[in-house]
């Protein structure tokens, strides 16, 4: 799996959690890191190429799709894509109007960007964990994390950008009032200034960190569970007909991509026939499960069912996390705009 077919489950998981890092290694100079240790040795002046590439790619996708809608925008009856975009825009606009009471032209577009972009980044979580890394491994790229929001750099980067905005608007709107808020807030006496400053600073800093770490934690945990479920498919390898299925019988410890491709084609074919109305839905589910069980044994069947149910649940999680990030950003900026 993932190119080198890691011997143990731990290695497999660690491999999946390693970013593709480009940086200056003290021994080998500039280049891609070949192991986790090399990546750590590169220190701060290194960059996660996969996180950046996927997040920029998805952000560009967002910009391009919405720009297309904006170019088509008219006052007549909206249809198709424009309809969908307007639905999102109206939703964001309503949310911003509900929780943001200041006057700022930036907050609504900011909220839209955050919501859609984070949603797209989270959505990458629903792709099979091995799909893109395995394909890229064929071209010689050894590490690949396709979900940018499972990288704390990405989520904290966005949170810090929000933090910068918070501080900027606090100073812009409140001026010295902001300093007063930091120094005189809980206990209004000059003697308490150090205590006040400490408490307020912690409160202020907690906002971006909780914002970034919440998203990171949720997505990281979700990704982790997908990876753990993925190990189920390998669990039956070489374990006999019941637990390993036909695959274990035919290939033993080896992993055969072609065999799984055949199973995939069979499952997709049954689903397609169901959509065409040739096979009933109950039969479709049974047949898909049968293919999984015969092909990969009970472990593969269990993994398939778990992956399916976790993915369904995860659709809720990714939307919710994008929404929470967006709403909290708006709320924090709203607090920065409130003059006491």
């Amino acid at each position, binding site marked *: 799996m993932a190119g080198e077919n890691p011997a143990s489950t731990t290695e497999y998981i660690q491999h999946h*959690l390693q*970013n593709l*890092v480009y*940086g200056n290694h003290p021994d080998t100079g500039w280049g891609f890191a070949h192991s986790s240790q090399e*990546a*750590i040795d*590169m*220190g*701060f*002046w*290194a*960059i*996660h190429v996969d*996180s*950046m590439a996927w*997040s*920029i790619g998805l*952000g560009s996708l*967002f*910009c391009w799709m*919405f*720009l297309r*809608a*904006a*170019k088509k*925008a*008219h*006052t*007549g009856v*909206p249809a198709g894509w424009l309809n969908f*975009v*307007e639905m999102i*825009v*109206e939703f964001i*606009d309503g949310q911003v109007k509900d929780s943001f009471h200041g006057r700022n*032209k*930036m907050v*609504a*577009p*900011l909220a*839209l*960007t955050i919501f859609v*972009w984070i949603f797209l980044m989270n959505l990458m979580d629903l792709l099979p964990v091995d799909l893109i890394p395995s394909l890229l491994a064929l071209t010689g790229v050894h590490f690949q994390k396709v979900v940018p929001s499972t*990288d*704390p*750099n*990405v989520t*904290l*980067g*966005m949170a*810090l*950008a929000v933090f*910068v905005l918070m501080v900027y608007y606090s100073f812009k709107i409140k001026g010295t009032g902001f300093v007063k808020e930091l120094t005189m807030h809980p206990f209004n006496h000059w003697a308490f200034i150090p205590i006040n400053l400490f408490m307020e600073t912690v409160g202020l800093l907690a906002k971006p960190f909780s914002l970034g770490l919440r998203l990171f934690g949720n997505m990281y945990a979700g990704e982790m569970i997908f990876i753990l479920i993925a190990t189920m498919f390998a669990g039956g390898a070489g374990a006999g007909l019941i637990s390993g299925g036909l695959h274990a019988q035919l290939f033993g410890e080896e992993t055969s991509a072609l065999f799984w491709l055949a199973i995939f084609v069979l499952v997709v074919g049954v689903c397609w026939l169901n959509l065409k109305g040739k096979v009933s839905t109950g039969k479709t589910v049974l047949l898909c499960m049968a293919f999984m069980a015969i092909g990969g044994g009970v472990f593969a069947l269990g993994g398939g069912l778990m992956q399916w149910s976790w993915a369904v649940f995860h659709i809720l999680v990714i939307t919710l996390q994008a929404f929470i990030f967006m709403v909290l950003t708006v709320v924090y900026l709203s607090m920065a705009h409130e003059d006491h």
Partner: protein
Amino acid sequence: MNINLTLFGQMVTFAFFVWFCMKFVWPVIIESMEERQKKIADGLDAADRALRDLELAQNKATDQMKEAKQEAAGIVDQANKRANQIVDEAKVQARTEGDRLKVAAEAEIEQEINRAKEELRTAVAGLALAGAEKVLEASIDDKANRALVDNLAAKL
């Protein structure tokens, strides 16, 4: 998992996308949506107004219809009255004309009677003369007797 330059890279990327959205996406879509909202509101207003106008027009039409009916009824009444009047007038005229004709006819009849009487008188006088001539069988002086007989005839 380690924190590195990606953090700043992400901040810059984020700022760029927010700027892009703020400049090219959000205002355009929101503007067109608001414009459409206004258009729809205007359209609904217009529809309401049209409905009210329609109601007013219907009321007006009903009123006019009623008025027209009343007018028509008045005209028919008047016409009937006038017709009766004309008939009455005609009756009166006819009666007077009839009376006049009757009087004229009566006068004519009177004249006829008088003329007939005159003729009769003349004829009687002739007949009497002829009778007397025959009776007397003598030649009586026509001139002397004529005055006598005429006198007699005038007495008839």
